[in-house]
Structures are given as C-alpha cells and as structure tokens.
C-alpha cells in the first residue's frame, strides 16, 4: 500500500466511523428522550397505556 492510499484510507475511514458514531449516539438519545416522556393522553383523558381512567 502506498502512502497516498494509506492517507486516503485513514482519512476517509476515520470520518466514516465518526459519522456512524454520531448517528448511533443521536438515535440512542432520541430513544431515551422518547421513553422518558409519559404517554400522551387521548381525547377522553385516559392514558394510552391501556389502563383505565383514574376515578
């Protein structure tokens, strides 16, 4: 492998791996935020979890 090939391989693969890492971090945080939110309430006031409305 020439120095030129090595330069392109190192440069592009590091950028690619960092970009993938960013996407994975973003996805996992979005999921964490989504899960931490309480379920939204439906029109009749009952939670969308299947539980009966509170008395």
């Amino acid at each position, binding site marked *: 492998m*020439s*120095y*030129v090939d*090595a*330069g*392109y391989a*190192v*440069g*592009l693969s*590091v*950028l690619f791996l*960092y*970009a993938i890492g*960013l*996407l994975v*971090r*973003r996805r996992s*945080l*979005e999921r*964490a*935020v*989504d899960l*931490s*939110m309480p*379920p*939204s309430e439906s029109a009749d006031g009952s939670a*969308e*979890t*299947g539980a009966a409305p509170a008395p």
Partner: protein
Amino acid sequence: MSARPEDRRVVAPRPRWLRIVGALALVSTAATVWLGLWVTPPDQVQGNLVRLVYLHPPIAWVALYLAFGLAALSSLFYLWRRTRSLFWDRLAAASVEVGIVFTALTLATGMLWGRPTWGVWWTWDARLTSTALLLVLFLGYLALRRVPADPEVRARRCAVAALIAFVDVPIVHFSVIWWQTLHQGATVLNSNLSPTIHGSMAWTLLLGFVALTLVFVWMVGVRYRIEVLADRTGAERLEVSLAERWAEGDLDMAGASGSPATRNGGAVSLRPPTRVGP
C-alpha cells in the same frame, strides 16, 4: 392500546436541510476521491504523493479555521451579555469535538505525507508542534466540559477556555512564515493571494475544500442535536434522582421516628412517602 413511538415523539424533528447537506457532502467527497486518485495527473516534483494535497489541506482548513473559528466565535457570543444563550455553548461544544477529529486527521495525513517527503514521520517543526499543541488544548476543553457544574458555569468556563486555546490558531497559520520550517508555505492562502496550483489540480483541491466543509457542517449539525438531547436527558435524570433522594429521606425519617402516628406526639399528619419512577 399502547402508543406508537412516533405518537409519543416529543423531540423536534430532524431538520431537512441537514439531510440535504449530508447527501451533498457524500457526493462531493466521493467526487474528490475519484478526481484525486484517478483523474488528476501526478506532479512533476512530488509524483503521486501530490494526491494527498486534495485531502490534507482541506482537512486542516476545516480543523483550524472552520471548527475552532466557529468555536471561538460561539464562545465570544456566549460571553457577550446581549447574545448569551446556551445555543452558543452547545454550538461551540459540537464544533470543538468535530474539530478535534479533523485536527487528529490533519496530523495523521500530514505524517503520511511527511514520511516519504522528509524521510521522517514526525519532527518538532513549528507547524507540526503548534498543531499538536492545538489538539491538546482543545482536548483540555472537552475535559473541562466533563467537570460537573451548573450548565451556565460550565458554559462560561468553556467559553473562556476555547478563546484561550484559539490563540494557537494564528500561531499555526503563521508558523511557516515566522520560523524556518520543513513544512511548505501556503499554496492557496499565501501572502500574494495567488494560488500556486493550476488546472485540474486546482479544481480538485477546490472541490476538496467544498466537500470537507459540507462534511463539517453535517457533523456539527448532528453533534449539536446530540448536545441538546444529552442536556435534556441529563436534566431529566437529575430530576428523577433528586425525587428519589427526597423519597429516601421521607422513608428514613419515618423509620427513625417510629410510626407516623407517634411522630410529634401524633399532632402532625405525615404525607406518605412519594412513589417515584415507573
């Protein structure tokens, strides 16, 4: 019926422009690699090694001027009372992290160019040393961000640190003029502002600058969103943790003072311990 994830989504949607920038970055980077490796001719003096010019200077441009420039500007806006907002702090943090990746790549690709050209992987040349120092300074910035503190205190500390670290950027830029160095002088941004590169080589280099700039914009966009989400989950975790501590405190008090009925001679009715968490 359980809610679908998209129904429960409370995070702002991903911006559409970021996808467009990402696609453009991918296409322009692929075009730069194709032109750089297969289309442009070898140089009269450097031969095929000149092909690294389409990668190394654009990476260095992003690291030094875009990433750390944006970080310094954002820090300045944060420190200025009129524009103070955590937006600038997050933008600076995103920019610094991306800048560190690009600075490390600047050093790595520079070493791969230096070995066949100068005969050594590394030399304590002014340009190389000041660039390595820049990497260390901004790694310190990231370390400072991890020190637990109130978000505004952290933002102020980091803004000052970014401005101090940025002092090294002009030193890196002018190092090839101020000192005698092995590193070559500026090819494009020289004192006469007349590029010493021509034809297809110049166009490919220009495309390289555009491509890596787009990559930088995309990465900072994604990294900024990560910063927003991390702040949000961090704040929520803190709230839950505080509520748990309060609940534990209530339980401890109840355990230490006997039953709620006997506490304070039964004069005060105590609320039951708060149940926290799912």
